[in-house]
């Protein structure tokens, strides 16, 4: 009798199919791109251009003081767009604080999506309306939420999947580990998208993990890991769609790592020149998601000057609308501070509310 005969020793699953390929999955610039649906490509293109313009406009609004902070996803637009487009209306999206574009692409109003960053409240949209969780400031804590929701949906017999977004830095948090473990043990219908943009503020990949890739972490939990070029919009979309379909069909969770790059600094308050070279940024600019897709569309005769102009105009109109709507100060009601702490305010809260009300009244009269 050896350990091989004991009940405990059995690999619970075959590891090989769970491992990612050696190279990130790509479509653009490969022969396989030819089969891509033209309508999908045009849809992606429109979203990408609008997304880039939104990033630029939001960054400008921060410089003007209309937003307290804006963590830009410039350079990562392919991931931002592909994630919500891989979902159906009944699915749920769990974004991190850099994923405002994904939230808007999901259908949330472009101004409501910015409430957290403007600072008039902690979130500006009802999560149930478009099935988007509030933008999460703490890293990776929204991953267990996504797992629990997906699990609840499966228990309820509903055809619902969840997609949780996290960055390379967030994968070091304990909640990343715990979420993936729960997801695999429960076979929850959830997809984890790791947007590997190279940095957690200033901390580069080499200081964040020693894993071969983030996709390789998946096998440790017993779920498949997929590696994709994060700037190749149709490739990311396809990888996520496959993963979401798998989840819906009862195949359990998937970890998708999208390799991309954060072109801008962490936020407007950060100085990226302190920790990285412009040459590195330039190299990634040459791999820009919009340029990649444009090349494919143009090559197939799907994008002429007229269409390019129309899409650009639409993006400009979106930016102008954003500027206009963000021009005025938001409506603030200090009494709201007490209204939602509990289902019913405690007697103590009511007293505090009365105190503030009296202060504001005195202010108004003076």
């Amino acid at each position, binding site marked *: 009798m050896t350990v091989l005969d004991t009940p405990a020793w059995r690999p619970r699953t075959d590891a090989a199919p769970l491992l990612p390929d050696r190279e990130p999955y790509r479509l653009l610039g490969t022969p396989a791109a030819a089969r891509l649906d033209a309508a999908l490509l045009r849809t992606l293109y429109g979203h990408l251009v609008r997304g880039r313009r939104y990033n630029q406009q939001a960054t400008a609004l921060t410089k003007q003081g209309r937003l307290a902070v804006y963590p830009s996803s410039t350079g990562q637009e392919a991931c931002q767009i592909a994630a919500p487009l891989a979902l159906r209306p009944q699915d749920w999206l769990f974004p991190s604080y850099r994923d405002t574009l994904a939230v808007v692409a999901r259908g949330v109003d472009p101004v409501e999506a910015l409430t957290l960053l403007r600072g008039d409240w902690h979130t500006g949209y009802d999560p149930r309306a478009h099935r988007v969780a509030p933008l999460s400031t703490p890293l990776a804590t929204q991953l267990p939420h996504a797992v*629990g929701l997906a699990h609840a949906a499966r228990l309820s017999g509903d055809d619902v999947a969840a997609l949780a977004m996290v960055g390379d830095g967030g994968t070091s948090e304990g909640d990343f580990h715990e979420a993936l473990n729960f997801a695999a043990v429960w076979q929850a219908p959830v997809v984890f998208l790791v947007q590997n943009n190279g940095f957690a503020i200033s901390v580069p990949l080499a200081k964040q993990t020693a894993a071969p890739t983030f996709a390789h972490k998946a096998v440790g939990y017993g779920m498949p890991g997929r590696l994709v070029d994060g700037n190749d919009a149709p490739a990311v979309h396809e990888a996520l769609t496959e993963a979401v379909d798998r989840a819906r069909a009862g195949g359990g969770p998937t970890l998708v790592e999208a390799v991309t790059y954060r072109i801008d600094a962490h936020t407007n308050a950060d100085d990226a020149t302190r920790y990285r070279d412009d040459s590195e940024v330039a190299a990634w600019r040459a791999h820009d998601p919009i340029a990649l897709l444009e090349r494919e569309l143009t090559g197939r005769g799907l994008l002429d000057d007229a269409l390019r102009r129309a899409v650009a105009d639409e993006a400009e109109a979106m930016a102008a609308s954003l500027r206009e709507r963000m021009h005025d100060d938001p409506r603030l009601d200090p009494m709201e501070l007490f209204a939602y702490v509990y289902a019913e305010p405690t007697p103590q809260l009511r007293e505090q509310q009365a105190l503030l009300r009296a202060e504001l009244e005195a202010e108004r009269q003076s």
Partner: protein
Amino acid sequence: MTTAMPSTDRAPALTRKPATMAQALNQALRDALATDPAVHVLGEDVGTLGGVFRITDGLTREFGEDRCTDTPLAEAGILGTAVGMAMYGLRPVVEMQFDAFAYPAFEQLVSHVARMRNRTRGATALPITVRIPYGGGIGGVEHHSDSSEAYYMHTPGLHVVTPATVEDAYGLLRAAIASDDPVIFLEPKRLYWSKADWSPQAPNEVAPIGRAAVRRPGRTATLVTYGPSLPVCLEAAEAAKEEGWDLGVVDLRSLVPFDEETVAAVVRGTGRAVVVHESSGFAGAGAEIAARITERCFHHLEAPVLRVAGFDIPYPPPMLERHHLPGVDRILDAVGRLQWEEG
């Protein structure tokens, strides 16, 4: 606003027989699972084993693994997934195996469980109940005897509830599960095997959250306490009769919302109060209670409000815990210091 009340379609006869607090808690979970399909129990060892204290005994057998689930060993994951379940409309009742083992879940509790309703302007409520065995006096080794109520009380958005009697264990747990607010439900583990004549069949017996209970009226001084310290205070009140003191005892039951009205009314009647709790005194629950009593009852007070609490030390090893826990003698000494000479 709240979900199903206890079922009234059981046998009408009220048979009161001795039951332990553990059994009452078990019955509350059973009844909640039976009456509301949204209720899901989860935690480490709650399923097949029935919980290390047997509080969830038999639930998986009766309701299945999907309703009473053994989770991986990961408190942050347990609370975090419960958040997601609640976002979807379920009513998770999670167990943290011991008070100190809830600490890994602290971020999820404070950053999300306590804040989601507020963050979303009421759109997303999280009706989660977090059951935590707390307190010492069981000879537990390190980390098994903590009382963390102060951290939770200090976190706006959480209700904090703690039964001290068999009847309240049932009623308050049903109320906690039915509540649309997240409730930290602190179970005094050394009272798990305390017995009382009690019947789960009494209809509509759901003790309200936010109401203290006057366990013993008294005219001389008032002991204000909760959880595992209630029996000690009742014992002290009995012993106090020999000193000629008629001590009243208030069982808070609910730390948040705090029943200031009841406490203030009782203390105004006696003019003297001692707050008793196991957890460390500095910045503990007693500090808040004493401040509030002083503010509300100052002109009725004959003496400062005193506190008998654990020392400001990490919870002691089992062989030394008796020096740390508030006992009858220490409580009576405090009563003795309520400035009787000037009175």
